[in-house]
């Protein structure tokens, strides 16, 4: 008998033993854990591991509060992320695979769970008893807040030290209110920190006068978490010729990050009529949209590569353009052009060509020699990236080659008891990555403080009686986010652009989700190989196989397909192709197809 046959026989049994009479069961079998990781692509792509099908199904059932709570289990700020998330999940949505149409608006639905829940909705928090341990967190940005929330749930006394007057970090000081209303920010930050977290604002950690040294924090607390983000701008390299190295020294030239932070601290900011923004991320787009609202009439974003390769959402690009902002590609600024009085006249750019791919997945741009050209502008905002700052450290920590603090997967730095999380470790990423990282490091701190791991992830498996979707749902078009009219947008910097789904839009969009957490499985002992399921399947999702590879880590691998009947070991539903339409289930004459809902939950150990 071939090796393949042995594999098939091994996989004929269910991964986890189901109870005799149905009901829910829990599994730590690698095959079940691997199945969830591989078959729910949106959840796997979410840095916080949000149970996306779970909350979308709750929305479908109009259980908005439940949907909000499912979100909150992974991401403590759903109303905020539902507005400004970079949406890595949507890129991997099965609905976006070739032939399946467009991605589900996962992020808009997240916001709907927050917007549509009842006023006075009761938040569910599962509290541990007091541990007697004290944790100091430096920085009240997304990573710090997420970690503080989790650590306080785990029973630790947490204090956050924040240099600004209010918490939120980039959420408050980097993102304009027309994308993230401050009342939403305030409520969700308050909810995250209200379980006894002590918030000390206006306190700067550092070596200078009036500053609190890190060494003292470490002495006073059982653990310290550094989550100070990447709050400095990357310098723009420019040719000489203006006599000054620092573009900030020219009037009307400013780094975009400081422009936004100043604005959100309450400083008065002005721009000229013609505004150039150099950069390609969310900060660059935010700068351009703020500039438009401050009176810029010709606002242009200059990018090194092309729209396809910039790390922002398509919706954000569209809204930018809709507000009259232009995006011009394949250009790198080479020098500023100023008049005799030192006033900015414009920018000299070099034409670029596209190069290869960088390690970080971004596209390279290569300036072409002799291709320089001039673009006039009155104001220049530079937003080409952000970096971490370590000059406040009075404790020696090992740094990596980019100047970020080195930390292991649990956030532990080279100094025992000092942890680091979020953009401070990874360099500038996204809010959801910072939250995900903050939560993972919080779990690492808890393990270190308590001397053992207290929680683990398992798969909750629940039988589902019948398909939860209709085939007709697959043809529903993507429901676009309603937005404020253009005439309203420029009236105030605080007028929110995206106005949110109402119940009808949320219900329609939620139906589009395939609910990939549903696992369709054929019981081959009862299958009569009639092929009816194969005939009705709208995709190539039911396969005749010799067996299924089992990888070294115990998870399912490649399906070993065959077309020879004498080699068929099983008829197998390829859940990566399956769109959970339920057609196979409905047509099966022997009822040998079962459906279970498989999702990660956290269990106490």
């Amino acid at each position: 008998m071939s090796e393949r046959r042995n594999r098939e026989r091994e996989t004929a049994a269910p991964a986890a033993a189901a109870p005799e009479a149905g009901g829910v069961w829990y599994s730590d079998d690698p095959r079940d854990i691997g199945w969830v990781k591989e078959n729910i692509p949106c959840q796997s792509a979410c840095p916080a591991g949000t149970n996306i099908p779970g909350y979308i199904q709750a929305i479908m059932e109009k259980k908005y509060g439940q949907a909000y709570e499912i979100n909150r289990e992974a991401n403590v700020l759903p109303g905020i992320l539902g507005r400004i998330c970079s949406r890595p999940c949507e890129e991997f949505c099965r609905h976006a695979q070739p032939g399946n149409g467009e991605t589900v608006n996962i992020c808009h639905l997240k916001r709907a769970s927050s917007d549509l829940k009842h006023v006075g909705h009761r938040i569910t928090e599962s509290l541990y008893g007091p541990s007697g341990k004290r944790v100091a967190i430096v920085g009240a940005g997304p990573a710090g807040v997420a970690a503080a929330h989790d650590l306080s749930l785990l029973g630790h006394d947490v204090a956050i030290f924040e240099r600004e007057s209010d918490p939120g970090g980039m959420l408050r000081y980097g993102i304009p209110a027309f994308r993230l209303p401050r009342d939403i920010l305030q409520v969700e930050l308050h909810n995250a920190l209200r379980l006894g977290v002590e918030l000390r604002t206006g306190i700067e950690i550092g070596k200078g006068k009036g500053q609190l040294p890190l060494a003292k924090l470490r002495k006073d607390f059982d653990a310290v978490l550094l989550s100070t983000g990447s709050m400095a701008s990357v310098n723009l390299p420019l040719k000489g010729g203006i006599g000054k190295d620092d573009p900030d020294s020219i009037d009307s030239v400013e780094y975009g990050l400081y422009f936004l932070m100043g604005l959100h601290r309450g400083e008065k900011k002005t721009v000229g009529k013609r505004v150039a923004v150099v950069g390609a991320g969310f900060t660059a787009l935010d700068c351009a949209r703020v500039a438009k609202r401050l009176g810029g009439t010709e606002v242009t974003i200059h990018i090194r590569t092309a729209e396809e390769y910039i790390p922002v959402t398509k919706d954000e690009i569209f809204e930018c353009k809709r507000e009259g902002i232009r995006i011009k590609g394949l250009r790198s600024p080479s020098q500023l052009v100023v008049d005799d009085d030192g006033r900015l006249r414009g920018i000299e750019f070099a034409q670029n060509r596209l190069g290869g791919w960088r390690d970080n997945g971004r596209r390279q741009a290569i300036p072409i020699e002799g291709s320089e050209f001039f673009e006039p502008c009155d104001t220049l905002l530079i937003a080409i990236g952000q970096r971490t700052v370590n000059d406040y450290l009075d404790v020696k920590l090992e740094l990596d080659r980019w100047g970020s603090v080195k930390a292991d997967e649990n956030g532990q730095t080279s100094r025992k008891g000092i942890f680091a999380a979020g953009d401070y470790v990874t360099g500038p990423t996204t809010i959801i990555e910072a939250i995900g990282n903050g939560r993972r490091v919080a779990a690492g701190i808890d393990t270190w403080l308590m001397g053992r791991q207290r929680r683990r992830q398992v798969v909750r498996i629940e039988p589902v009686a019948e398909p939860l979707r209709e085939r007709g749902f697959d043809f529903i078009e993507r429901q676009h986010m309603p937005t404020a009219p253009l005439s309203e947008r420029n009236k105030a910097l605080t007028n929110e652009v995206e106005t949110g789904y109402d119940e009808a839009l949320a219900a329609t969009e939620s139906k589009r989700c395939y609910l990939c957490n549903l696992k369709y499985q054929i019981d081959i002992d009862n299958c009569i190989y009639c092929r009816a399921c194969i005939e009705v399947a709208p995709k190539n999702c039911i396969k005749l196989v010799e067996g299924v590879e089992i990888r070294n880590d115990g998870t399912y691998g490649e399906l070993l397909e065959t077309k020879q009947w004498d080699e068929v070991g099983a008829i197998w539903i390829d859940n990566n192709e399956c769109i959970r339409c339920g057609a196979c289930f409905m047509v099966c004459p022997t009822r040998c197809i079962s459906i279970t809902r498989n999702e990660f939950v956290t269990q106490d150990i």
Partner: protein
Amino acid sequence: MAEATHNVIIGNGSAGNGAAITLRERDPDSRITIITMSSLPFYNRYDLPRVFRGCHDWREILVHPPEYYDDNRITLRRNSRVIDVDGRSRTITFAHNEVMHYDQLLVCAGGRGYLPEELSDYYHLMHGFHSFESAMITHDALPQGGTLLMLGGDMIGLDLARTLIDVGYRVVLLANEYTFWPHRIEPEERDGFLAALERMGLEVVDGMHPVAIEEGAAGKPARRVLFDDGSDVDGDVVMPFYGLMPTAEFMLGSGVDIERGLLVNPQLQSTDPRIWAAGDVCQIWSEADKEYRFYYGWTNVRQMGEVAARNVTGASEDFKGVGDERLHVGKDGYIQSPFWEY
């Protein structure tokens, strides 16, 4: 016997057809497939103004007789939308889930009318001119002697305008930076060209910024364009002519370099050696201008298709483009453009 090379052309316009017949001439044994979203065989888009001169039968605007494709052993796949191209597996996926293999792919998908994003909410109140079908809908919506409100006024729109004026319609041009696209007009030339348009019979409204479009009030023309200063103008039909944007979305996952269009070298080869592009969909590297640039107009587009096909079949020829791209005013006082020549 070895299987014939399968050359697939996406797009059934001037570039695609120029490429197809060149391929057939140079490689008689190859398999050629043209894929088009249109329900009609190849017709010349520059001929569409004829709809307003009484040409209402699609057969009259076909460039080739129906048997042309069979005679040349070209498979024409009409009503077929490509949604994905995978350069690694050399496959094309259609909206109806069919997958087709290619050996060499020529992307000649052209461009579609650009509508500035700030006007996207009013798309349903505008009429198009991108196909025979849309031209007929516009024709039916515009009453004899009625008023067309033309936004922008690129050279495609101005070509339609001169026909409309000739047959008794009124054309109000709401001029802006897109007027005369794709010509690059020096600021000091602009007033002269606008004056030439007025001599041709267009009513030119310059410097006004449309912010909204509404349905007309009862007893009034069917449409009203509102400007940012609170004023407005009435018309029977509103048509946007803001130039073309490449139809390249389906190529985004293909692995080839794209800025606005597919980026190609002067031989019209993309960054994938088996994918070529021609026509309004591609940006061609110009060593002289040190930039990737578009070339428009029937003559350019046709030539691009032919050059790409010759290079697919072993030549190494650069696309050069028509020499004179300037807009000028003729002896009759009317504007003349190489863009209109075919």
